[in-house]
Each structure stands twice: as structure tokens, then as C-alpha cells.
């Protein structure tokens, strides 16, 4: 993983270790697969949470991501870092879930559709500040939110984010700048 934007949270290990893990998993080493999961489970959970996947869907989302990782390891060419590749899978899946939620939300306002009950809060995330941050992040567009989360929370560098999102680095900078401005604006509206 590109550590140029280093954050304080736990980060997956060096690139060489990742490559060795991938090779061992490809050779059928179950312990290596477990180690890979242990290394990336926390970032994946944190990432999908920050992208707005609700608590009741996070386990399924993480499972889908890791099953996709396992299936795809045979085709992983190592051109990108393993972490970038996993973030890309997780980002795509979180986006898919987000679209589904938005459509469900849209349908729930139709007169003949029964509204869904509010999901229960995640007991693991009682901190009101984090919940407030999630609400602020939800005000950003999905692309801006993803850039901000990858940079500010996951600690990826701009080039790596560009790789995850499939866009030029300048676009990442632009989205990041706008996302920050919008986040501050939304925060001021709430805190003042």
C-alpha cells in the first residue's frame, strides 16, 4: 500500500509481504489465506463503513468482497498493489450497494410501497461524533465521499486513489478539494 499519506490506523503490511501471501494462497496455503484476511478485514470493514454501508449490511458486504478477492487472486497480475486491488473491489461493491439503497429509498416514497423500518444502530459504533461524521459524509456525492475516505481515513496517496477509482490524479485532487470544502461547510451548519 502506498504509505505516502500515512495515517495512524493499522495498515496492511509491506508490498513484498503481500506478494508472498498472494503466491502462497495461489499454491493452496490455507494459513496464508487466513493471514490475508486478517490483514485486510479491518480496512475493508472500516472502508465500507465509511462509504455508508449500514451496519446490518457490512458483514455481507465484507464477505462478498473477500469471496471476490479469493476468486480473483488467480488473475491478479500484481501490476497494482494488493491493497489497491482490494480497495478497488470493495469500492465497486460499496457503490453497488449504495445505488441499491438509494433506489430502495426512492421506491419507499411511492404510495403503494411500504416503508422499511429504520435499521438498529450498530452497538460497536456508539460514538456520537462518528455517527455525526457519517451523516456529514453522506451529504457528499458518492465519488467525492470515496476520494475523501480513501485519502483522509484509509490514508492512500493520490496516485493510488486514482488507481482505485480509475481516474486521473488531477481529478482526485479536484474531488478532494471540493469534498473538503463541502464537508467543512456541512459541519459548520451543524456545529454552529
Amino acid at each position, binding site marked *: 500500500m502506498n504509505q505516502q499519506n500515512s495515517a*495512524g490506523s493499522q495498515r496492511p503490511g509491506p508490498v513484498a509481504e503481500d506478494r508472498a501471501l498472494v503466491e502462497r494462497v495461489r499454491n*493452496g496455503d490455507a494459513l496464508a489465506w487466513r493471514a490475508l*484476511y486478517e490483514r485486510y478485514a479491518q480496512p475493508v470493514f472500516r472502508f465500507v463503513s465509511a462509504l455508508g454501508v449500514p451496519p446490518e449490511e457490512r458483514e455481507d458486504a465484507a*464477505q462478498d468482497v473477500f469471496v471476490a478477492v479469493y476468486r480473483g487472486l488467480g*488473475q491478479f497480475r500484481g501490476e497494482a498493489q494488493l491493497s489497491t486491488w482490494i480497495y478497488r473491489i470493495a469500492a465497486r461493491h460499496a457503490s453497488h450497494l449504495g445505488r441499491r439503497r438509494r433506489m430502495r429509498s426512492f421506491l419507499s416514497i411511492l404510495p*403503494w410501497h411500504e416503508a422499511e423500518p429504520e435499521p438498529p444502530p450498530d452497538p*460497536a459504533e456508539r460514538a456520537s*461524533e462518528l455517527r455525526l461524521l457519517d451523516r456529514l459524509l453522506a451529504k457528499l456525492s458518492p465519488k467525492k465521499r470515496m476520494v475523501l475516505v480513501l485519502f483522509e*481515513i484509509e490514508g492512500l496517496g493520490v496516485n493510488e486513489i486514482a488507481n482505485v477509482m480509475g481516474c486521473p490524479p488531477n481529478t482526485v485532487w479536484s474531488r478532494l478539494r471540493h469534498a*473538503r470544502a463541502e464537508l467543512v461547510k456541512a459541519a459548520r451548519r451543524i456545529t454552529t
Partner: protein
Amino acid sequence: MKWPTHKSDDTEKWLSETLEAARQRTGDEVARRRVWARIEGLLSGKSLPLLRGRSLALPALTGALVAVAVVAVLWMVPATRPTHSPVVAKRVASSVASASQPGPVVSKVVSQGSSAAPVRTGQGEKARVALVGGAGVELDANSVLSWDAERRPSVERGQARFEVPHQSPGARFAVSAGPYVITVVGTKFHVGVDDDRVSVEVEQGVVEVWRGPRSVRLVEGDSWAGPIRGLASPTVERRPSLAGGALRHSSLGDSPALVENGPASLELTQARTALGEGRPEDALAMLNHCAKGMGPAAENAAYEMGRVLRDSLQRPRAAVTAWANYRTRFPNGLLRAEADLSILETLGRVGDKAAALDEAESFLVRYPNSERRDEVAKLAARLRGATGQ
């Protein structure tokens, strides 16, 4: 680049601290362990080459199709309702008390999500196994249940009684037994496998037994048996009723055997491939041709035309017509209820409330015991309010 930079500003200071807290968010350790157990169960015994080449990276159009399908399902199905996926098992019920009632003495209760290893029962032993999609299976003594390469439950030996809740529109639940694949939408049935033959007995609903391109359809009260080796020449016996319990191997007469679907089955497969490749017009033409044939493949094609028209070609009215044609041609078809629900759902989506209300009321009359009854009844009540009836 460090941000927020103006930490003297209360808002940016708060943002800085909260983002740092978000970076340190470790999540729920128990949740991560639970997910690992599910992944391990799903992937145990599988080597990478078997899984190679599939990922979440679907082409954009396919993604859109899936999204539309998900929307369709979400619209009609409660959000918590499990859906059957042959590859990815979601959470499975911890209890399978509903899998078989009244229940005999059961010494094992197994969840597929916790272990994909074969489930074996010994002498005098029975087991209940929770499957994806809310289904359950009860294994009799001296039986073995495993999962095949496509992650379908597979009866290797002995007797098994399956109870499958009604599947989401378009979804099928499949069980393999020797060279046969048994597909259902929602039903209760028994599968027996001994040294030289596979037998199926239908307690409720409709099932199809497939071997390659050939198939036979069984309805409530039917029993069927086919050889494991050599060419399939199975027979079907129709009896007025069934008692619960183990499968009985009664003498089988010369009733209908598997129907050759050959070219039609192949065409159906090609149509699905075309749809997956983003060629819905081609898929529709193939389905239309296939639907003119006979047998289950023709019936499936007639139903799937509606889905392609609605979900891929955005022609909901034409889809309703296609499903209406299906109902005319296959009034008691396996997918009849699915066609009824699809029409109801589609009419609702296009805002034809009066026609949707007619469909809802017809559904309630036709399927008084459907597990979707409450859902459709609520919808009918809303539609009555909306139409002033």
C-alpha cells in the same frame, strides 16, 4: 498534504479529531470472525483454479441489469428475505425448526454457513441442515449430503427431505443427486440415492428433474426414479397423496420419462449468455424462438422474455403482454405464480393502479395459501385506497 489545517477553527478542529477517530475505528472483532467463518465455510476444499475468472467486476450493462433485478426483487420482497445464490451463501438461519415439521428425533443441526464439509448420518441418526435461501433439509439415517462444484446441495447417499420456501421471482433452488439436478421454485420433496438409482417424491409444489438437456416435471403426489449409470430411462408414478416420512420405492410403471429439450435447452442457454454480454435484442429473439418449442425450456423462455423486455429493454408494457402470453400458454406452469407477481409488480411500476389492483385481487383468489399473500393483500389495500375503490 495535511488537513484540516486551521485547527484554531473549532469546526476544523472537530473534523480533524473525528477523522482521526474514524481512522482508528477498529470495528467489531466478533463480526470479522463471523465473516471469516462464513468465508471459510464457503471456500473450504476449493482450490483457486475452480474460482478463477469470476469477480465482482461485471460489465457495466450487466451491473445495470442486476441493479434493475435487485430493485424488482426489493420492491416485492421484504428486505430481510433471504435470496438464493448458488455461489455466495449469506447468513443462514441458526435454526431449521421450520425445515421439517413434525420433526423426528434429530441428533445434528448443521448450518451450511459454518461448514461446507459433507454432512453424514450414521445408524439411527438424523440431521437437519440449514441451506441458503431459507431452505432446510432433513437427512435420514445412513445418508450423506455434500455440496457440488456449483455449491448446490448434493445428496450422495440415503434419503433427504427438502423444504424450500418460495424463491424470489426468477430464482430457482437446485439440488443435485447423482447425474440429475432437481430444480424447484418453492416446495417440499424427498430425494433418495442408493447404489444404482436416484428417486424423487414430491410432497408439495412442483419440481423439475434434469439430466443434461432432458427433464421431467413432477407435481404434488408424483414419485420418480432414474438410474445413476447408463442412459436415463426414469419413470414417473402418480399417486393420489403422500404420507410424510421416508421415501417409499413403490413399483414404478411406464409413465412419462424425461423429455428431450435438446436444441431448445441450448438456445435458452445461448439467450442467457447473450443477455449477460449485453445483447438483449439477440437474447429476446432467441427466447422467442425457443418459446415456440415444447417442454420446460420453452416454458422458461416464454417467462424470461418478459424479464428481458422489462429489465433490459425497458419495455414494461410489452413485458406484461409477454407474461400474459405465458399464462395463456402455460396456465398451470411452474412459473405461473412468478408470472402473476411479475405482472402485478410491473403494472405497479408503470402506475397502472387499476390493472395492478385487478391482478392483486386475482392473485389472492388464486393463491389463498401463498406465503406472499399478506404482502399482496397489503398492496391490494393500498391500491384500493389509491384508486378510490
